[in-house]
C-alpha cells in the first residue's frame, strides 16, 4: 500500500506540482472547449483559438497571484 501511495504521490508531484489550480483549470477549459465545439456551435472552433490562450494567461496570472498571497 505504501508503495502504491508513493507511486501516485510521485506522479502527482511530477505533473501537477504545487499548483493544482493550473492543472484543474487547463483540464476544465479544454473539456469546455471540446463540449462547445462538438455539442454547441462549430464557430467555437475558430474563436476558441483566441479564447484558449487567453484562459491560459488568466490561469497563470491567477496562480502567481495566489502564490504571492501565500508567500506574503
Amino acid at each position: 500500500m505504501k508503495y502504491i501511495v508513493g507511486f501516485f504521490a510521485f506522479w502527482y508531484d511530477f505533473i501537477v506540482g504545487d499548483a493544482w489550480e493550473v492543472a484543474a483549470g487547463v483540464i476544465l477549459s479544454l473539456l469546455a472547449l471540446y463540449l462547445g465545439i462538438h455539442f454547441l456551435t462549430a464557430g467555437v472552433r475558430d474563436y476558441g483559438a483566441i479564447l484558449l490562450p487567453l484562459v491560459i494567461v488568466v490561469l497563470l496570472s491567477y496562480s502567481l497571484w495566489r502564490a504571492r498571497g501565500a508567500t506574503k
Partner: protein
Amino acid sequence: MHAWIGFFSSFLASAVEVVEAVTLVLAAGVTRGWRSTWIGVLAATLTLVALVVVFGPGLQTLIPLDALRVVIGTLLLIFGLQWLRKAIMRYTGMKALHDETLIYQREVNELRTAPGTAGTMDWTAFTVAYKGVLLEGLEVIFIVITFGLTAGDMTPALLGAGAAAVLVTAIAFAVRGPMSRVPENTLKFVVGLMLTAFGTFWAGEGVGLNWPGADWAILALLAVYAVVGGLLIVLLRPRVAPGGKVVSQA
C-alpha cells in the same frame, strides 16, 4: 518547423536538468569515488532509454493521433505552465533561486559523513548518482516522448537531449565543479514558454480548434506568452525605494 523546435526545446530542457544531475554526480564522484558513481549514471541512463523505447513508439501504435494530441498537449501545457510559474516566482523573489554551488556543498558534506560500504561497490555513491540522473532525466524523457510522438519522429528530440547531455557533462568536467554560472532560471523560463505554446497548440488541435496560420500559430502563441511572462515578472517584482527598502509587491 516541428523538428527544429523539437530539437531546440529538448536541448534547452535537457541542459537545465543535466546541470542539476551533474551537480549530484560530481558530489558523489569526488567524495565517494568514480567507479560506483559511473555505474549509477550508466544504470540510470539505461533505465531512461528503456522508458523511451517502451513508451515512445508503443504509445503511438496503441492510441489514435488525435487522442494522443489531447493527452500529450494537456500534459505538456500543465508541465510548461509549471516551469513558467516556477521561473517567474524565482525572478520575482517569491522562490529562492537554484544555487548549484550550495547544493553541491550540501551534498558533499552529507556524502562525507555517510558510512562507507564493504566490498568493491559503494552503494551510497551508486544510489546518489542513479537517483540524481533518473529523477532529473525523467523530465527530459517526458519532453522527448511528447515532442517525438506529436511530430511523428523521435530523432530531433532525442538528438537535442543527447547533445545537451554531452555538452553540459563535458563543460562540467572541464571546469571540475558545479555549473553555477549557467543561467538556469532563464533556460527554465524559455523552456516553460515553449512547452506552454506547444501544449496549447496540440491540446487545442486535439479538441478540434482551427488554428489560424496552422503551425505558424505556435510562434504567435510563443510571442504572446513571452510578452505576458515578461509583464508578470515586471508586475510581481518587489518595488524598491531609493534607500533600498522594499516598498511594495505590485
